[in-house]
C-alpha cells in the first residue's frame, strides 16, 4: 500500500513531487496529451535532468540549460512591457515565441509582467509600472517607503493578518483605504454584540472597496487563465513548468515592502528584540505561503528572491542574528513539506556560503548572481544545486564568443560532477538575442556529461 503523505520522509515527499511532475495533468485532471512523442520525451528528459541536478545523487545526461529573464521575452517578441502587462494575448504570444526560439529546459512562465489593469483597479502604490510612473518601454519598479511604521511592531506581532488588512494593505492599495475601518475577526464571538462587528460592511467606503476588490479579482482570474494556459500549452510541446509558488526570507518581508531597507536596518539597532519577535511571527507564515501554493499548483519549486542578506548589506554578525535563522527555518519547513526552495541570491553571496552548508543535501536549488561560482562549487557543491550566473552586462553588451567563453568557464568550474544548471544571474530586461542563443546552444552542446 502507498504511504500516506504525512507518513513520508522529506526524501520520499520530494521523490513523490518529481513523480507528479513526470505525470502531468491537464486542468480537468486527465493525463496531459502531448503534441508528439518527441515532445513527451523532451518533457520527461528535462524533469529527469532537473531531478538529477538537484538531488546530487546521479549525474544528469547534461547540464540543464535555462534562462530566467525579467522583461526580455517581451522586448524580444516586439512588444513593450506596457503591452505585456495590459494585453494578455500579446504577453502570452511573445512568451511562446521566446520559449520556442530559445528552448530553455525549464521555462519560468509568463507571470512576470503581471496584470496591469488589476494594479490600476486597486490603485497599487507599492510599484510604478509602464504608464504609471515609468515609461511604456520600461519595466515596473518598486516604490520603497516605510509602509509599516517603526512603532507598529506590536500590532504586527499580535495579529499579522489584522495588521496586514487594516494597516499595510490600505497603504499600498489606494482602493482598499477603507479597510482600515474593518473590525477584528477574532472579536466576532457571541449573540450579544455580534452585529456591531458587521456595521463597517454597511458603510459606503467599505462597500466601494469591496466592489473594487471583486472587479480586481475578476481581472486577476482573466490574467491567470492566460498565463496558466500558456504553461499547459508549452508543456504539451515538451517544456515543463516547475514553479509552484513563491516565498520570502522573513527579514526581506520586513525589509523590502513593510519597513523598507533603511527602516529595517535602523530597527536592528533601535528595537532588535521586536524585530526578532516579528521575524519569528512571519516565519511560519512564509512556510505556509510556499506549501499552500505548491499544493494548489502541484509543483514543488518555490521561488524565493533574496535581497537584504547579500554581501555588504549586513555584517556577518547581523546576518547570523537577523537574517539566516528565519530564512533557514523557512527553507527547512518547505523541504519538510516536500518542496524544493529555489532562492535567488541577488548581488553577491560570497561571504554567506558557509551558512548554506547547514542545509540538508540535495534539497535546494540556488540561483547566484555575482557569487564566485568556482568557490561556491567548492564550498557548497555537495550540499546544493547551483544555478546561474551569466552577467546581465555580458548578455546585453558582449559578443556571442564572449558569452560562449564565459559559459565554458562556468561549466568547467561549477558543472563538474553535476549539481549545476546554466542560467543568467540576475533578472534582466534587455539582451542581444544572439547572445542568449549563444548561451543556450553552446551550453547544451558543451554541457554533455560523458
Amino acid at each position, binding site marked *: 500500500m502507498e504511504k500516506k503523505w504525512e507518513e513520508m520522509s522529506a526524501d520520499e515527499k520530494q521523490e513523490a513531487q518529481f513523480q507528479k511532475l513526470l505525470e502531468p495533468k491537464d486542468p480537468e485532471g486527465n493525463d496531459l496529451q502531448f503534441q508528439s512523442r518527441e515532445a513527451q520525451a523532451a518533457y520527461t528528459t528535462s524533469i529527469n535532468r532537473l531531478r538529477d541536478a538537484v538531488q546530487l545523487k546521479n549525474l544528469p545526461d547534461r547540464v540543464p540549460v535555462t534562462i530566467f529573464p525579467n522583461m526580455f521575452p517581451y522586448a524580444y517578441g516586439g512588444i513593450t512591457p506596457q503591452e505585456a502587462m495590459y494585453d494578455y494575448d500579446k504577453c502570452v504570444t511573445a512568451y511562446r515565441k521566446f520559449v520556442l526560439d530559445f528552448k530553455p529546459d525549464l521555462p519560468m512562465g509568463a507571470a512576470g509582467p503581471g496584470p496591469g489593469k488589476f494594479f490600476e483597479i486597486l490603485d497599487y502604490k507599492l510599484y510604478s509600472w509602464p504608464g504609471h510612473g515609468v515609461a511604456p518601454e520600461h519595466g515596473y519598479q518598486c516604490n520603497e517607503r516605510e509602509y509599516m511604521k517603526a512603532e507598529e511592531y506590536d500590532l504586527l506581532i499580535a495579529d499579522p493578518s489584522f495588521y496586514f488588512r487594516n494597516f499595510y494593505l490600505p497603504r499600498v492599495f489606494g482602493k482598499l483605504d477603507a479597510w482600515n475601518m474593518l473590525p477584528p475577526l477574532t472579536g466576532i464571538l457571541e449573540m450579544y454584540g455580534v452585529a456591531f462587528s458587521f456595521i463597517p460592511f454597511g458603510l459606503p467606503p467599505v462597500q466601494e472597496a469591496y466592489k473594487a476588490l471583486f472587479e480586481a479579482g475578476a481581472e486577476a482570474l482573466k490574467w491567470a487563465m492566460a498565463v496558466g494556459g500558456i504553461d499547459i500549452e508549452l508543456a504539451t510541446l515538451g517544456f515543463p513548468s516547475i514553479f509552484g509558488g513563491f516565498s520570502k526570507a522573513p527579514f526581506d518581508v520586513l525589509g523590502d515592502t513593510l519597513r523598507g531597507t533603511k527602516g529595517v536596518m535602523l530597527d536592528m539597532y533601535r528595537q532588535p528584540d521586536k524585530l526578532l519577535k516579528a521575524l519569528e511571527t512571519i516565519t511560519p507564515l512564509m512556510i505556509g505561503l510556499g506549501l499552500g501554493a505548491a499544493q494548489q499548483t502541484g509543483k514543488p519549486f518555490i521561488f524565493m528572491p533574496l535581497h537584504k542578506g547579500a554581501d555588504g548589506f*549586513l555584517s556577518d554578525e547581523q546576518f547570523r542574528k537577523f537574517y539566516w535563522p528565519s530564512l533557514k527555518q523557512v527553507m527547512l519547513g518547505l523541504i519538510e513539506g516536500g518542496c524544493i526552495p529555489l532562492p535567488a541570491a541577488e548581488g553577491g553571496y560570497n561571504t554567506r556560503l558557509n551558512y548554506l552548508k547547514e542545509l540538508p543535501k540535495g534539497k535546494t536549488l540556488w540561483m547566484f548572481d555575482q557569487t564566485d561560482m568556482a568557490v561556491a562549487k567548492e564550498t557548497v557543491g555537495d550540499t546544493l544545486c547551483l544555478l546561474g550566473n551569466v552577467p*546581465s552586462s555580458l548578455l546585453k553588451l558582449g559578443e556571442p564568443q564572449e558569452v560562449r567563453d564565459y559559459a565554458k568557464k562556468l561549466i568547467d568550474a561549477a558543472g563538474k560532477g553535476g549539481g549545476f544548471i546554466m542560467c543568467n544571474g540576475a533578472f534582466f530586461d534587455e539582451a542581444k538575442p544572439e547572445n542568449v542563443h549563444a548561451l543556450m546552444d553552446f551550453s547544451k552542446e558543451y554541457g554533455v556529461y560523458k
Partner: protein
Amino acid sequence: MSGELVKLLSDLKEPESLAFVEKSLGQGVDPMDLLEEAKEAMNIVGQKFARDEYFIPDLIFSGEILKSIVKILEPHFKKDEGGERRGKVIIGTVAGDIHDIGKDLVAFMLDVNGFEVFDLGIDVPVQEFVDAIKDTGSRVVGLSGFLTLAFDSMKETIEAIDKAGLRDTVKIMIGGGQIDEQVRDFTGADAYGRDAMAAVQLAEGWIGG
C-alpha cells in the same frame, strides 16, 4: 577637544552621542568643535566601511545619528559657519530608473566626507545633468542605475554632456547593481565604483583631498 564624541559616534552609540552633545552645549562647548568631532567620527565610519568592518546598516545608522546631532547643533550656529567644502559633485539615478538606495548612500558618504553634493534625484532626464554641470561648475558627476536600461541612459547622458562641450570639464563615475567594467566601457564613463567608499575615493582622486 575631548574626542569623546568621536568615539561615541564612530561606535554608533546613539543615545550616548546625543546626550553628550546636549551636555557639552550646556557646559558651553563651542558647537563648531562638536561638529568637527562628528565629522571626524564619520570619517572613521567611512574607513571602517572601506575595511569591511562596517556594512550598509552601520552607514545608514551613523547617518541617522549624525542628522540628529546636526539638528541639536544647528540653532547654536552663527551664520556662515558651514565649513569649507572640498569640491562639488553632481549625482543622480539616470533616466528611466527610479532606484535610490545606492544613490542615496553615495550622496551621503560624499557629503560626510566634505564634498558639496548636488543630488538630482531619480529618473533624471539627460538634459538635467547637462544643466547642472553648467549651473554648478561641478567637476565630478556620478551616474547611478540598477536596471539594464540604465546602461543606455548612462551612455546617452554622457553623450549629451559631450555634445554640450562639457566632457573635458568633468570626470564621470557610474555605479549600481549590475555595473561592471564592460558597462563602463560601453557608456564612456571614466570609472565605475562598487560601493559608496569607492565613489569617495574616485572623487578625492579627481578633485584632490
